[in-house]
Structures are given as structure tokens and as C-alpha cells.
């Protein structure tokens, strides 16, 4: 009989361990309901009878209730359900548009042209800036942003800055900034800071007040690993930066990083709602929510604190519509069919127009209708 004391002791020791495991299981229950975009409109060149002149979408830029669309084949404006487009036949210097930024001060539209510098669209006319006629450091422009009077351009040979008042250009490369590599890939310009995603060079921060640079690199300094999840930027092959509510979201082709000025948080495909670590673009909606355009759908971190995600993707090649997977960390809690029928989920661009979300893919554009949208979780 005494022998069974061992069993009782073992059971007593086992209970807290099983409870611990049970807590793991319990952690995948939702702490509140995230908003799910279930109502969608989708647009391709075919479905719009050519009004969307090209449906390989590279960039989206909100302009009040309207949306500017940069594509592989021209510039498009969507306004009140109508489409208007500009191509080289209309004076657009080059059809391939990688970035768009609306200057709220002047009303001008600035375009990053892939291989042809930048253009300013003002009063119905395009003004063309290239390496040959301006101080632009390179014509292969990947991104453009505006901070104050300055237009910042991310290009394949470094960063250019154009002051619209003084008309002076400045260039920044490895000689003027802490750039391990100079291949600027994207820019996020804000009142106080300008962030650059530099391919191979991590994230570069320009402090507007002090006019100084700060670089953020992967602390393990190795391309083939991420040594620790939260030690810093996940990888130096960065693709975009988004700065909102004093929080930096940095996307890479190896996952997502969040930095609040003190702590980093890393997200990979096995520990989060990211369906893939290949993130083309990340658009921060707040300091606790970010929309990630991956090669396998759009992953939305809805609530940072509870690690709640909604990931929109096509579950199979044959799927007629996309599915929203509600997740906590990397665990799916439930799946919800949504009315999005774009034929491919290789997402490239995202933009918020009011409560709506627009996403651009390699073959089509879609609008998620944000009726009754709310941020975070509804508890």
C-alpha cells in the first residue's frame, strides 16, 4: 500500500505541470473579438473593362476619400467610384510607379518612378526630375516621402532630399550616413522622424530636429539566422518602415519587427499570424496594429498586447474567395469566409481610406469595407 504513495506524489507533482500545459491551451482563446473585413470589392483590369489600366499594383496613397494607385502601367485615381488614369501618352514620364506621396501643404503629388527618377504632378502637368537634370542621386527610385518642405527619395544608390523652397538637393550614401549598404528601398516620412528601409542596411532613422542619422541593424549580424527573437531588428533585408504612435514597424523578407523606442518584438511565420516571412510592405494603423502584405496574403496584427491576428488569404489555388483566419500568436482560433475574390494573394501594397482598407496585389486591387470598424478587440 505504501507503494501507492509514490503514485499519489507523482499525481500531485503532475497536476501543476498539466495545469501549465492547460494554460498554454487556454492562451489560444480570444480575449476579445477583432474586427474582420468580410465585405470586399475587387477590381482587375478585366473586371473594370480597362478602367484600371494596369492591375499589377505597386503603391497606394490615400487622398481624402480618394485613392491614388501606382502600377506597373500608369498612375490611376479612384474617386467616388470613378477611375481616371495617366500613362506615358498623357505626359507621365514613365509608367512604372513604385511610390506616391501627396504633399498636404501644396497639394502636389510626388511619384517615385522605377528607373526614371521622380515626377511632380501639379496642375495637371508632370515635372520630371532625373539624375541628369537634378541632384537626384539615382533614377531607380523605390520610394518617396514628404516631411515639411523636403521630398525624400529612396533609390538604389542612396537617399536624395529635395527642399521645395530652397530648391536645394542633398544626397546621402555611405559617405554621409551610417549605411552599410546604400540600397534604399522605402521611406516613411513623419513630422519628427524619417525612416528608410535600406536593403542590406536595416532601418535608417533621420531625426528632423537634430538632423542626425541612427541606424538599426540585426544584432546577430548574420544573414542565415535570427539568434534571439526580440533582440532587435529581425534582418537587414528590410522592405518598408511605418512609424505611427511613436512605434516603428519594420518589414523584411524575413519577418516583421516592432520597436517602441525601448523594446523590440519580432514576428516570424511560426510564432505569429504571418503566413509567410516574405513581407513586401507593412502599413501601421496604430502603435498596436499593423497590416502586412506578404506573398501569401495579408496578415493583420489587430492587437499587440494580446497578439491577436486576422490573416486574409486564399486557402487553396482553387478557392473562389479568401478566408480570414483569426489567430492568437501562431494558433488559429477560427476561420471566416470573406467576400474577397481576387485571383491571387501576393499582396504588395496596403492603404487606409477612412475605415476602409485597400490592398494591391500582383493581379488586382481590393477594398475592404470598414462599416462599423473598430480598433483593437471588442471585449
Amino acid at each position, binding site marked *: 500500500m505504501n507503494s501507492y504513495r509514490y503514485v499519489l506524489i507523482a499525481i500531485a507533482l503532475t497536476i501543476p505541470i498539466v495545469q501549465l500545459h492547460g494554460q498554454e491551451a487556454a492562451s489560444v482563446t480570444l480575449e476579445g473579438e477583432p474586427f474582420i473585413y468580410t465585405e470586399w470589392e475587387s477590381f482587375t483590369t478585366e473586371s473594370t473593362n480597362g478602367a484600371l489600366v494596369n492591375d499589377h499594383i505597386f503603391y497606394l496613397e490615400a487622398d481624402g476619400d480618394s485613392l491614388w494607385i501606382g502600377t506597373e502601367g500608369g498612375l490611376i485615381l479612384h474617386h467616388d467610384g470613378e477611375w481616371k488614369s495617366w500613362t506615358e501618352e498623357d505626359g507621365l514620364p514613365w509608367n512604372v510607379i513604385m511610390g506616391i506621396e501627396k504633399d498636404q501643404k501644396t497639394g502636389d503629388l510626388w511619384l517615385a518612378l522605377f528607373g526614371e527618377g521622380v515626377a511632380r504632378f501639379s496642375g495637371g502637368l508632370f515635372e520630371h526630375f532625373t539624375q541628369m537634370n537634378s541632384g537626384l542621386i539615382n533614377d531607380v527610385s523605390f520610394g518617396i516621402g514628404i516631411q515639411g518642405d523636403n521630398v525624400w527619395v529612396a533609390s*538604389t544608390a542612396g537617399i536624395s532630399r529635395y527642399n521645395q523652397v530652397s530648391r536645394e538637393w542633398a544626397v546621402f550614401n555611405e559617405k554621409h550616413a551610417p549605411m552599410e549598404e546604400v540600397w534604399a528601398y522605402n521611406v516613411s516620412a513623419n513630422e519628427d522622424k524619417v525612416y528608410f528601409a535600406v536593403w542590406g542596411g536595416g532601418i535608417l532613422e533621420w531625426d528632423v530636429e537634430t538632423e542626425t542619422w541612427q541606424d538599426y541593424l540585426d544584432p546577430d549580424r548574420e544573414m542565415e539566422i535570427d539568434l534571439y527573437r526580440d533582440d532587435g531588428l529581425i534582418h537587414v533585408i528590410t522592405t518598408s518602415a511605418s512609424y505611427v504612435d511613436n512605434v516603428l514597424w519594420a518589414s523584411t523578407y524575413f519577418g516583421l519587427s516592432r520597436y517602441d523606442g525601448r523594446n523590440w518584438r519580432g514576428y*516570424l511565420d511560426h510564432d505569429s499570424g504571418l503566413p509567410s516571412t516574405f513581407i513586401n510592405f507593412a502599413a501601421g494603423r496604430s502603435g498596436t496594429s499593423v497590416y502586412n502584405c506578404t*506573398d501569401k496574403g495579408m496578415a493583420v496584427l489587430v492587437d499587440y498586447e494580446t497578439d491577436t491576428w486576422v490573416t486574409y488569404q486564399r486557402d487553396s489555388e482553387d478557392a473562389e474567395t479568401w478566408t480570414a483566419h483569426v489567430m492568437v500568436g501562431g494558433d488559429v482560433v477560427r476561420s471566416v469566409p470573406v467576400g474577397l475574390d481576387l485571383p491571387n494573394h501576393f499582396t504588395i501594397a496596403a492603404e487606409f481610406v477612412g475605415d476602409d482598407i485597400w490592398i494591391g496585389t500582383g493581379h488586382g486591387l481590393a477594398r475592404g469595407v470598414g462599416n462599423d470598424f473598430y480598433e483593437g478587440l471588442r471585449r
Partner: protein
Amino acid sequence: MNPKYLAVFLLAASLCVLPLDAMGQVEQTQTDTAAYGLTPEEYRPFSRFENPYKEFFLSLLEYPGYGRHIPEPDSVETVKIGFIGPIMKSVAESYGGPEEVPMRVNQRQVRWDGYGASHLAPLGIKMLQGAQLALEQANQRGGYRGQTPYQMVVMNDNGEWRSSGRAVIDLAYRDSVWAILGTVDGANSHILIRVALKAEVPVMNTADTDPTFVETNIPWVLRNITDDRMMCYLLADFAYKKLGLERVAALRAVNRYGRVNIDEFRDGSTRLGHPLVVELSYQEGDTDFSAQLERIKALDVDAVFTYGNSLESALILRQMRDMGMDQWFLGSDRMVTDELIEIVGPDHGRVVAGYPYDPTSEDPKHLQFVADFRHAFGEEPETYAAHAYDGMKMLIEATERAGLNRALIRDELVAMNPYHGVTGVQIFDAVLSDRSPATLAFLVDGRFEFFSREHVLSDEFEVAPPSNH
């Protein structure tokens, strides 16, 4: 069951259900796959201290995007394949493109036919010749599916980033090529693939041995040449394990090739317990290395390790020997040239370089290629020609199978694994880079001889004892 055993079983079973991260260690997501780059355990970063939270480059790159459904064009006059490589420093458009410059020059001259040569022109011209030969042979067989000739659209990579980036955009959007082959320089290759990623064009790289080139997760890029990661591991194994060297100094080009491609040897030296004694650099075009060599000489090193182009490597070696420095001289494949042999002369001493394949292979495919190349150009092929030939053949074969669709051509390229070409059997890894074994090239009596890893690290392979400097 004995109650004691039952108690032990219960405890063990309860522990087994614990997630690993609850026990204080991070989860390993992919531990059962071979290491990236075939990296030996001792060379893996932090392997003595920690398991990484995530290992990248172990899953085959996918392209899940659009494009495969785009129909083939009704008709094309030619099937265009882009080429970008270092041929000339600059060329006026009125003279035509680089493919129209006669390839009848002494490639070691820095100027010819009125054009300024790129400093990498000897490499780029061989690359162009290899690609041309493959394309011409395809056209002799009738061209694309026996009906349409292939056409190579040649762009010059003059080493300046502006023109290189623009050249790729022209290939992708203005010339509408189906695939691109190129280039040599690491920086320009990175620029090329970022453009290719956005434009969604397959790229075959046959000449850039920068390890980071493929460490970008771009699913449109393949590389069919063994990289400096693998060549550096072999050099480090040979230097430290075979020769027993302890004190190695590095003298490398200050450019990206010298800075980045040396990485794995530098890190490997440290991980084997022999960090480089010193790492000095020089500018491309320098001819006097006495200042750096005097410093290295004073450090009493066992060997000098260099990464740079052929000319500078040759001058460094010549000046070392003139200064009475008879240590081992180790370096990159770029110094395996006739130019180095000529400049250094017969008293070259102990010299070894990494090399991406065996150019003395008796494989019938290789022998046929050498004969064809001699017949076509009246000169010998080398690594850049041979790999470009293989790369262009792969592009053409993929196009034949896929049809005129970039995404499908990409898929067919990925499916060609392994590929038996004139440079041997190429084995592509998850990031689509060739991981076939590197070789070592020893300078013996005024000519380079090539040996496999197995041979040089075996007991049979005898080497002179390390210098007593």
C-alpha cells in the same frame, strides 16, 4: 505495473506534454534539415553558445504570385534573353551596344578599340562569349521550339550603379526579355535582383560569388556557381587543419568584393580559434603594397590571405616574394589567371586559391565545350565562360519547356535540379544557389593544378611544412 514505475511514467509523460518554450528554451522550427550552405557545425554562427531562434534558407523558395496564367504572345520575331556584364567602362550609343564591339582584343589591356575597358572586362568578356556560344548553338538547332531564333540583348555593366540599375529596367520593360543572365560585381548583382523581383523576371547569375547574393529570399534568382562561402570553408580547412597555420594576415580590396566575400574565411578563422592577425585593405588600381606588406611582415605571420582582382593579387604576391616573405599565399578564384602567373614569374612560392569547379575535368560535356569554345573564339575558356555557357543553356532549356512566360520559366529553372552542365553536376539548395563542391587551385611550377576537397585534406596529399617566420 509497479507503482514506482507508474510514478516515473506519469512524471515523464507530463513533462513530455510541455511545450519546449515553457521550459525556457526557444523552439527549433527546422532541426532536421541540412544546414544552410552545407556549413559544417564548427563554422556555424554562435554554434558553441546558442541555438538560433530561427534558421533561414532551409525551405525551398516559392513564388506564389501571379503570372503563370499570362498567355504566350501570339508571335514574336525573336525570343529575347538579356545579358548584363562588365564589358566596357562606357560606350557612346552611336557606336552601338557592347555586343557589337569586336571580341578580338587582348583582354588584359585596359583599353582597346577606343573603348575604356571595365576593370572586370576580362571576366565579363569571357562570360559574354560563353553565353553567346550557348545561344548560337541553340539557334543552330532551330531556335525556340525549332521556329524562332533566340536573341541576346546585351547590356554593359560598367560598374557604376546608375547605369547598371537602368540597364536592368530597360531589359525588363523596354526590351521585354524573358530572362536575364548576369552579372559579376556583387553590388550590381544585388541591384539587378531587386529590380528583377519587382519586374518579375528570372535571373541566372553565373559569376557573382558573393555569399549574400542569394541570402535575400528573392524567388526569381538562381546562381549556378559555387560561392565564396564554400570556397572560404575549404580554404580555412586547408589552412588551419591541413597546414596547421595559426597566424594569418588578410590583405584585401576595399571594395564590396573584398569586404563581403572574405566574410566566411574571417569568421571561420575566429571560430576555429585563429582570428586573423590583421586585416588590411587597398584600393582597386593600387600598384604598391609595400606599406601593408611591411606591417604584415613585422607581425610574423604564417600566411597572407587576399581577396581582390587578379592584377592586384599578382602584384601583392610578387612584392611579397621580393621582400623575402615566403609564407603561404592564399586567395580567391579571381587570382587563378594567366595574368598572375606572368606577373609573378617562376619563383611564386606556395600559392593556393579557392576555385568553384574543376576546369581540368575529363567529363565529355566539358571536353566538348572546351573544343567548341576554342573553335568559336580561338582561345581557352575559363570559369566565367563555362558557367555562363551552363547558365544560358539552362535559361534556354527552361524556356523551351515552359514557353514564353516568365513565371513558368522560373518554375522550370527551379525544377532543373540537379543540372549536369559543363562545369559538373550543379546541385541547387533551397535558395537556388549551386552547392557543388569547391576545389583548390595550387600554383605548381608556374601553372595551376586543381584538387578536390577530399584529396587535399587526405593524408595522401603532401604539402611543404609551414614557414618558420
